[in-house]
C-alpha cells in the first residue's frame, strides 16, 4: 500500500513538472525545491523590483528587504514599516548583486521572482535552489493576469484574504480597461512612449514596457515584427508615424520635446499632447513592470478622456495608494492636494 502511494506521488510529481499540467491547472506559478506550508512562510525574498512591488502589496510583513534603492521621495509613499527595510540587492543569475552568503544569512523561507522567465533564468533558479536549499517561486503572466497572479501567490504565501481583496479591485479595473478599449476599437489613439534622455528609446509594441498602452486598446506606433524588447527609433520615423500623444516618465524629455526645434514638426508637440506620467513610488507606466502599472491604467484612461486634472482621478489614485501601497496619511493628503498630474519625480 505504502509503495503504491509512493508511486502515485511520484507520478503526480512527474505530471506536475510537465508543461501540460500548467495548461490544465492554469497555474502561473512555477517552483523549485520543497515549499514550506503557506502558514509557515514568514520571510520572503524578492528577486527583483517587479517581485518586490508585488510582495510589498501582497505580503508586506513578510518582505525581507528591497532589491532596489528607493530615494526618499519614493519612500514617502511607502508604509512606515517597510520604509526601513534594508536594500538587499537583486538575484538575477549573473547580474545578481546579493551574495549567496548574505542570502543565507537573511534566511528566507522562499525566493519569489515575477515576470516571464526564459530557460536561462529558470536554470539559474534551479541552481540557486540546489546550492542554497531555499525554494524559488517564479510568477509568470502579463499585466492582464494580475488577479490570477495575486490569488495564486496569495494561496501559496498564506495571504488568501489580502490577495482576494487586491484581486477583486484589479479585476474591476481590468474590466473597465476592456470597456475602454472596446470604445476606441474603431479608431484607436496612436501613442509613442518615449524613454531615455533623448526620448528616442522606446518599449516596442508587444513588449512588457508598453502593456498599459495596449491594454487600453491604444496603438503603440513603434512596431518591429519579431522583436518585443526596447528599441531605438529616429525622429524621422516619428514624423512618419505622427502619434497622437507622446508619453514619457522623464520630465527631461518633456523639456526637450517642447523646446528643441527638430521636435516641433510632430503634431503631438504642436497640439501640446506631451504627457509625463508620475513615477512615485514606482513608475506608473513602466519601471518596474509590475502591479504598479495598474496606476498607469487609471492615469492613461483619464488622460485620453481629458480629465487628468479632475477630481475623479484624484479619488481613484488615492484609493489605489490606500489599498495597494497603504501609504501614510500625510503623503495621501499631499497626493490629493497636488493631484496625480503633478506627482513627478
Amino acid at each position: 500500500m505504502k509503495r503504491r502511494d509512493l508511486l502515485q506521488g511520484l507520478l503526480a510529481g512527474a505530471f506536475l513538472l510537465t508543461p501540460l499540467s500548467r495548461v490544465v491547472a492554469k497555474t502561473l506559478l512555477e517552483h523549485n525545491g520543497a515549499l514550506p506550508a503557506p502558514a509557515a512562510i514568514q520571510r520572503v525574498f524578492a528577486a527583483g523590483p517587479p517581485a518586490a512591488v508585488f510582495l510589498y502589496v501582497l505580503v508586506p510583513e513578510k518582505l525581507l528587504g528591497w532589491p532596489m534603492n528607493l530615494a526618499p521621495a519614493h519612500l514617502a509613499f511607502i508604509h512606515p514599516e517597510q520604509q526601513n527595510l534594508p536594500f538587499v540587492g537583486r538575484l538575477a543569475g549573473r547580474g545578481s548583486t546579493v551574495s549567496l552568503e548574505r542570502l543565507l544569512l537573511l534566511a528566507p523561507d522562499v525566493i519569489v521572482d515575477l515576470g516571464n522567465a526564459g530557460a536561462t533564468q529558470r536554470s539559474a533558479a534551479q541552481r540557486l535552489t540546489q546550492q542554497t536549499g531555499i525554494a524559488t517561486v517564479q510568477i509568470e503572466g502579463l499585466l492582464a493576469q494580475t488577479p490570477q497572479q495575486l490569488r495564486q501567490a496569495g494561496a501559496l504565501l498564506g495571504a488568501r484574504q489580502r490577495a482576494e481583496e487586491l484581486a477583486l479591485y484589479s479585476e474591476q479595473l481590468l474590466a473597465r480597461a476592456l470597456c475602454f478599449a472596446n470604445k476606441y476599437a474603431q479608431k484607436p489613439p496612436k501613442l509613442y512612449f518615449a524613454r531615455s534622455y533623448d526620448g528616442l528609446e522606446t518599449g516596442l509594441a508587444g513588449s512588457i514596457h508598453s502593456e498599459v498602452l495596449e491594454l487600453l486598446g491604444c496603438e503603440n506606433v513603434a512596431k518591429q515584427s519579431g522583436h518585443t524588447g526596447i528599441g531605438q527609433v529616429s525622429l524621422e520615423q516619428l514624423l512618419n508615424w505622427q502619434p497622437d500623444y507622446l508619453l514619457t516618465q522623464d520630465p527631461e524629455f518633456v523639456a526637450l520635446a517642447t523646446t528643441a526645434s527638430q521636435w516641433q514638426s510632430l503634431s503631438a508637440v504642436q497640439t501640446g499632447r506631451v504627457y509625463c506620467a508620475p513615477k512615485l513610488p514606482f513608475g506608473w507606466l513602466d519601471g518596474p513592470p509590475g502591479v504598479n502599472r495598474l496606476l498607469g491604467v487609471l492615469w492613461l484612461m483619464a488622460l485620453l478622456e481629458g480629465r487628468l486634472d479632475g477630481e475623479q482621478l484624484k479619488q481613484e489614485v488615492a484609493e489605489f495608494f490606500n489599498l495597494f501601497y497603504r501609504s501614510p496619511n500625510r503623503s495621501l493628503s499631499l497626493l490629493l492636494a497636488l493631484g496625480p498630474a503633478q506627482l513627478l519625480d
Partner: protein
Amino acid sequence: MPQRASIDVNRSLPAYVKVMLAVALLAAIVLSLLIGKFPLSLAELWQVLVARISGEPLQGSADTVIWQLRLPRILAALLVGASLAVAGAAYQGMFRNPLVSPDILGVSVGAGLGAICAIFFNLPMLLVQLFAFVGGLFAVAAVYTLASLVRRHDPVLVLVLAGIALGALLGAGISLLKILADPYTQLPTITFWLLGGLHSVSLSDLAYSAPLMLLGLTPLVLLRWRINLLSLSDDEAAALGVNLTRTRLLLIVAATLMTASAVSFTGIIGWVGLVIPHVARLLVGPHFSRLLPVALLLGATFLLLTDTLARTVAGIELPLGILTALVGAPFFIYLLARGGRT
C-alpha cells in the same frame, strides 16, 4: 603596420584614387539623402532643397525631415567618420603599432564613464554630452600626466601602458554603474549609449562639435609631414631636428579633441578608427601626407553608408557600433586576402 615610411614625399596621390574616393563620397551622400523612413519622392526632395536655398523654406514635415534630420545626420556621419579615421591613422603612425585605435589613451572609456554618470543621475541630454566630452578629455589628460611622470622607459610604450591601465580603471567604473543602474529604465539607455548611434543628432549638436572636430583636424593637416617623422624611430627623428615631445603632445591633443567631440554626441563607435587607416594604407601606403586625405574620405564615406543602413534596414534603428563591425570586418578580411595574393 611597422613598415618604414618611404621618404619619397614628392609622390602625390594618384589622380584615379582621388576621383574614385570623391565619387564614392558624393554617391553616398546622394543615396543617403534619398532614402529614409519618411517617404519622400525625388520631386519633393528637390523642391525642399531648392526652396530653402532660395530663401523661402517650405512649411511642413518634408522640410524638417531634410533640413533638420537627414542633412544634420549626414553631416554628422561624415565628420565623425572622418575624425575617427584620421585620429586612428595618426595614432597608428605615432605608436608604430597597427592595433592602435583612437581610444588607446582612454578617450572613449572616459567619455563613456562621463555619459553614464549623467544617465545614472537622470541629467538632461546636454549634460550627458558635456559629461562625455569632459570625461574623454580628462581621461587622456590623466594618462598623459601619468606617463610623463615615468621617465625610465620608452615614452611611447609608457603612454600605451598608462592608457591601458587607466582604461581598465574607468571601465570598472562603467561596469559598477551598470550594476547599480535601474535595470528597467537606465540600463537600456547605458547599453545603447555604449553601442553608439547617430539617431538623435540635431543641428545644435553639430554647432558645437563640428568646430571642435575641425579644430583638431587642422594641426594634423598642417603638420602632416612632421607626423610622418614620428613613425620613424626616436633616434632618427631626433637626428632630423624634430622636437618629438612637443609634436607628440600636439598630435594627442588634436586626436583627442576630434574623438571626444565625436563620441560625446554619438556614443562609442568602434572599428572605424582601427580599420579605415589600414584600408587607406592598403590603397596608398603608409606615408601620412597621402594617408590623411584617403583615411579622411574613406572614414566619412564608410560611416555615412553604415549609418544609412542603420536607419533603413529594420523597423527600428540599429546601433551603429554593431553595424560598423558587421559591415567593416568582412570587407577588411576581403582586402587582406586580396593583398596577400598579389
